[in-house]
């Protein structure tokens, strides 16, 4: 299992290469079994605490939903009582207004067109980022020369925000669609490259030497030692890259002119429709989360060896 899933929003993909933390020796399931084996009944706060702290999966989901509900409740109250302590809530739309706007949009066809177009853009840009980022990262991790030639570009281009690319993207690419795909692609590319490089670089040299002394060829070492060792990092890079792709998409869709959830949000800003703006923001957040979960689920089978190895 993956010990810690990286939160893309937390890292913005611009953080230093990430390391996957090793799982604790005792698995969560074992702990659960241990606790359930205790027969005595708990009372009062202790009982509440036991339920709240339960490691069972349904409980974890319950806690997550509770956390979100508390956030929405706080948002509702902050708007209702017009909270004004450093941050001001007096003109912020309430959750109810945002919900009403959301319902209105999902009853129409347009919203789904926006979402569909954005998903297609993400899929294409992301696949390109994977197809280029992973091989490049692997090569850079194994070859110092390639690394020296490519890394300066990665480091210089990486901090450039997606919006700054808009004028050049329009100028350089033949169609609007390709400009948008390019901006989204760049967002996903760098986290994937950097995490792949880090994964390759942290391959225990002792394993490489062991394999070599056992007569493994360079290609075999790459296939059976380096690649598996890098996989956890690659998986993290893929998950982070997906998150960054979504927030680059908004910048790209400023130029789209017609469809896309980023365009939807941008146009809402130009007509000062705060509920729609928030619907757009939350849609991007939700779609980003879902697709990141999808990436994690898809990479999970490749990480099975870890559980066996430990």
């Amino acid at each position, binding site marked *: 299992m993956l010990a810690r899933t990286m939160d893309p929003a937390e890292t913005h993909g611009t953080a230093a290469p990430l390391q996957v933390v090793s799982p604790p020796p005792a698995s969560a399931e074992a702990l659960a079994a241990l606790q359930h084996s205790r027969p005595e009944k708990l009372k009062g706060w202790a009982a509440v605490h036991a339920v709240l702290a339960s490691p069972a999966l349904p409980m974890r989901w319950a806690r997550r939903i509770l956390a979100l509900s508390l956030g929405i409740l706080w948002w509702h109250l902050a708007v209702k009582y017009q909270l004004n302590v450093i941050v001001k809530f007096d*003109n912020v739309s309430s959750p109810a207004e945002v919900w009403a706007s959301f319902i209105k949009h999902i009853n129409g066809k347009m919203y789904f067109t926006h979402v569909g177009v954005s998903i297609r853009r993400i899929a294409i840009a992301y696949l390109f980022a994977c197809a280029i980022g992973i091989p490049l990262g692997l090569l850079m991790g194994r070859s110092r020369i390639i690394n020296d030639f490519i890394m300066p570009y990665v480091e210089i281009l990486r901090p450039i925000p997606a919006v700054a690319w808009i*004028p050049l993207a*329009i100028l350089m690419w033949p169609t609007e669609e390709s400009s948008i795909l390019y901006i989204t692609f760049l967002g996903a590319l760098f986290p994937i490259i950097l995490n792949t490089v880090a994964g390759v670089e942290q391959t225990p040299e002792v394993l490489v030497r062991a394999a070599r002394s056992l007569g493994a060829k360079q290609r075999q070492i790459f296939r059976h030692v380096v690649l598996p060792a890098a996989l956890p990092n690659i998986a993290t890079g893929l998950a982070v890259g997906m998150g960054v792709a979504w927030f680059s998409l908004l910048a790209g869709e*400023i130029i789209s002119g017609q469809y896309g959830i980023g365009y939807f949000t941008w146009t809402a*800003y130009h007509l*000062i429709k705060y509920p729609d703006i928030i619907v757009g923001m939350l849609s991007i957040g939700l779609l980003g989360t879902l697709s990141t979960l999808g990436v994690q689920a898809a990479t999970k089978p490749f990480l099975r060896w870890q559980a066996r190895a430990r």
Partner: protein
Amino acid sequence: MSKTSLAFTLAALFTSTAFASAQTLEIGIGHQSTVTNTVPGGVILEKLQLLEKHLPKTGKYAGVNYTLVYQDYTSGPPITNQMLAGKLAFGVMGDYPLIVNGANFQKTGKNESRFIMVTGYNLKGTGNAIVVPVASDVFTVEQLAGKQLSTPVGSAAWGMSLKVLRDKGIYDKVEILGQAPPVGVANIAQNKIAAHADFCPWSEVMEFRGTGRKIFDGSEAGIPTFHGTVVRKDFAEEHPEIVQAYVNATMEAQGWIEKDPLNAAVKVSEWTGIEKEVLYLYFSKGGISTFEGSMKPQWVEALKYDHGLLAKEREIPPLDFDKWIDTSFVKAGFKAAGKDYEAAVKSVVTSKPEDAALPSAEVWFEDGLKTYASIKEAAEAVKAATKAGKKVNASYVYDKATGLKLFGHVAFYVEAGGKLNAFMKKGDAEAFASSAKGKLAAWSDIAV
């Protein structure tokens, strides 16, 4: 940092802000330096420090230190956003964004905005236009059927586009894309979009740069276009004297443009980066914009039409125009300047074909501006100057059909009876050529 020094710093911070709030008054102004009609309410005030001249310094304002915060945006909505957040008091924007501003303020139920004056206008709607790439084979709006048109959604140019496409019966045949000015202008230059509709001064910027050609001028839609100033109601109630100072200063800035349009064009160009030749087309006598602040009935009527369109197309909330439009400040401003407000309301400057009060052509040489009684003379002068290695900034002529001021190098010409006639549109030139048995010509034929 030790605990005591941290506490000390915090205490110092708090006392300093408390001290400051008793002495300083911050005035936030959101403007759009690149949008020509708004410059008297923003960038001119800032650079000539006109507001400082008019701000009250007596009574309850004795000893007050003003901090003026000018924030420059490329469109109106971000200014409305800042005003709703309470960070800006004044905002200068175009007619459509003004309505979005007023309606959204009214919707909050807590605060409102007041529309206090006009910064610049064109009665017929010139300033907004539909432009195609210069090499395009599209010459009329009808030819856009089956093609894409981009425009900043929610702007006056967007409203004009919807109206003209409906009027021509091709609304459902043209794909409308939302694109901000920089995006649309780049797309026209790259020949990546069939047409782009924009507000002032972008169409003329594209013409001047030689990347775009107008196929539809806002005047053909017949809806006035103008920019003006809104102020937060709570601010206006607390500081009516400052609102008055702002209106008076804006009027002074308007007078500054009118007095010496050439100098104004050069200066504003230095401040904003918009080409001086384009600005002169707007500022000059017979040019596109008139910078005068009175609230004319035509403006109110146009605003109501615009609001109807916005409400229908984009569900913009209702707006109580009688409450929103507040003419008290601009009336007082006229009085203070010794001008007749009612007379100003009644008089509207607009272009008319073959206006005898204007010269036939103007040429802006690097060493100054010259006027000519005929296009032919102007063209000859340009030719001679080019031969002598002298730089010509721009030339200006008037459309024979509408009286609109145009760049000489983008007009279509017809030579008939030994006289050159200029036209904005190819179709008009061709019609005139066949009726007057004239010969079509281009600028390159007559002046190069």
